[in-house]
């Protein structure tokens, strides 16, 4: 069996077209991820702008001054400092919308490196609707509640809201409240930009799936096209082990490509930003996330999701390849399934249409763990990341069985 797997891998890795596709896509994904570092911008207190590695180093130094535990006292202090700055008219200008805003000097000296932290704190007061700092400017610090209780209340409120007639079920509410209560508080704050940039670019992992789908599109159809099906299907193991070998080789091939691409893409970001922040909670990027995960855990979760999607798409490609005689047709259908759903707008986290769209490859390949999307089967509640993994593993098993069956029964013409 392993001898057959070895030859199937040899077919995949020696095919000229595959070599070209793999090299081009590797280059593309590395650039797409690497751009987050190459184009990274930061400015110092004097307003001098920096780009790339210099900017990353500067921002690291700036964030180092802000690192620490986000206790109630620290958060109150951050808000108070901001409100004090706002009270001084010398710090303000009228912006192009005719509204009062902080002056450039304040931006450079104080706000620029704090903006992400403050905007994140702001969400607890503004709910899911805002990402800027308007709400914390209005907060009455004399009568404020415990910050983390407030955060949990915002999550509860959003679970109890009516979304155009659609609401969370009681089981779903319990699920999300429990999940969110497992988030460890208070949060530690430090430099995490490497991980946030990986998250922001992670959807580009779709390039890996596309590359794998192109290479595997001929795994069965290529045999039909070349006439090698005659030889395979008349050999002893042609209708049994040879098909299993093709499936195993496809999984190995996809895994190798996935790992290599991941090393190059994620590696290019971490090489510039470093691994700092791996043990910090993802809530310092999105404070209202209900998932109790660190950046590293969230990243690995995303890797698991994208790997499951990849395997599902491998299964689908094999199925199409066994059914269709041309590898181009296989590839076109694959691309359509991957890309077309991304053009439809997901209006909410409710309804079959939205929930299905959320599970489509391009939409589900990356989860920033900000949405509370769940699927309920009886009393069982499954969140979107887990549902994605399950969906694609089921898809993989079904399509592998179908591909096996179709190739075994293939009639040579």
């Amino acid at each position, binding site marked *: 069996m392993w001898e057959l797997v070895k030859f199937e891998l040899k077919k995949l890795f*020696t095919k000229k077209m595959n070599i070209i596709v793999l090299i081009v896509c590797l280059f593309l994904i590395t650039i797409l991820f690497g751009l987050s570092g190459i184009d990274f911008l930061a400015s110092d207190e004097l307003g001098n702008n920096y780009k790339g590695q210099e900017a990353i180093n500067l921002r690291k130094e700036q964030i180092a001054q802000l690192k620490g535990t986000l206790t109630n006292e620290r958060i109150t202090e951050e808000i108070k400092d901001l409100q004090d700055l706002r009270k001084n008219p010398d710090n303000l200008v009228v912006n192009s919308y005719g509204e009062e805003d902080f002056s450039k000097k304040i931006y450079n000296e104080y706000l620029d490196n704090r903006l992400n932290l403050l905007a994140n704190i702001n969400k607890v007061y503004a709910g899911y609707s805002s990402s800027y700092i308007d709400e914390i400017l209005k907060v009455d610090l004399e009568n404020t509640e415990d910050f983390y209780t407030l955060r949990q209340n915002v999550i509860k409120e959003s679970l109890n809201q009516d979304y155009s007639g659609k609401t969370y079920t009681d089981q779903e509410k319990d699920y999300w409240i429990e999940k969110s209560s497992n988030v460890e508080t208070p949060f530690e704050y430090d430099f995490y930009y490497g991980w946030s940039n990986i998250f922001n670019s992670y959807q580009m992992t779709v390039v890996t799936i596309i590359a794998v789908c192109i290479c595997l599109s001929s795994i069965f159809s290529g045999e039909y096209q*070349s006439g090698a099906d005659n*030889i395979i299907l*008349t*050999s*002893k193991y042609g*209708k049994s082990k040879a098909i299993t070998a093709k499936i195993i080789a496809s999984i190995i091939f996809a895994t190798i490509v996935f790992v290599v691409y991941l090393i190059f893409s994620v590696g290019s970001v971490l090489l510039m930003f470093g691994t700092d922040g791996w043990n910090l909670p993802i809530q310092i990027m999105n404070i209202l996330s209900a998932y109790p995960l660190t950046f590293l855990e969230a990243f690995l979760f995303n890797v698991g999701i994208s790997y499951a999607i990849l395997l599902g798409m491998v299964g689908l490609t094999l199925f199409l390849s066994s059914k269709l005689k041309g590898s181009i047709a296989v590839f076109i259908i694959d691309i359509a399934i991957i890309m077309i759903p991304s053009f439809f707008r997901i209006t909410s986290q409710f309804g079959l249409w939205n929930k299905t769209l959320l599970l489509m490859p391009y939409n589900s390949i990356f989860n920033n763990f900000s949405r509370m999307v769940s699927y309920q089967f009886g009393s069982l509640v499954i969140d979107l990341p887990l549902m994605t993994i399950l969906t694609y593993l089921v898809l993989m098993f079904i399509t592998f069985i179908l591909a096996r069956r179709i190739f075994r029964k293939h009639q040579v013409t």
Partner: protein
Amino acid sequence: MELTIDRLTKQYKNKIAVDRFSVNLKEGIYGLLGANGAGKTTLMRMLCDIQKPTSGQIKYNGKDIKSLGENYREILGYLPQDFGYYPDFTAYDFLMYVAALKGLTKETAKIRVNDLLKTVDLENVKKQKIRTFSGGMKQRLGIAQAVLNNPKILILDEPTAGLDPKERVKFRNLISSFSRDKIVILSTHIVSDIEYIADEIIVMKSGNKLLEGTPDELLSEFKNKVWKCIVYNKDELEILSKNYCVVNLHQENNNTELRIVSNTKPNSNSVNVEPNLEDLYLAYFQDSEENERR
């Protein structure tokens, strides 16, 4: 060892490719002779279990080949008409791959592959990619893969296609050497391919079995029916061509020498000659060949 084909039929929508074809095959070389489109390839594919018959059965030693599955394929060797290969594989790798498909252990495969590469004269190029091979080299590689598992049933579909006359002779010798204790079925529309090596010839036309027998048996039917005559003028040539089955025509100075298959003497100077398989083939397939040309 016995391979029984019982009323085998293959129908594609409105066309019947093979029509209630029955034959009983034992050890020996069988030449399946027929014009293009006679149904030879379809019949062979059904024998290899890669095309499903519309009706009828194929039995190996009394058992349906469908139920034998892997056990049947284990004793089968097949060289298809359009033999698919992997252009980026070397000849050695390709044969090792087919050996793995056929269930040979790695050690056995290495010995067998090297032996066969020598036999088919590809030993010196075994590390070359198949994409660099000539048509003849590819065909020899195809033959090697078909016999890798030392099959009891060897099915060769138009195996000499693309071979030059020298390679054809080599191929015939190769098949003869492989054929001991085997059922070898060799389809062709080139008479000379089977003339010397086939123990029995099966003639197919429009999906039907037209004739079956040893070359001598088949040729005996044409005894005293093949004539050679010389024609001295154009008019007579036209009349003879129109009214008789002319299997050969040779121009010499102002005269034309004709070879004719006919129950009666075509003209006064006609003399009986020994029939050969080409006479038989042309007599049966002249219509098909003409139709094809048209």
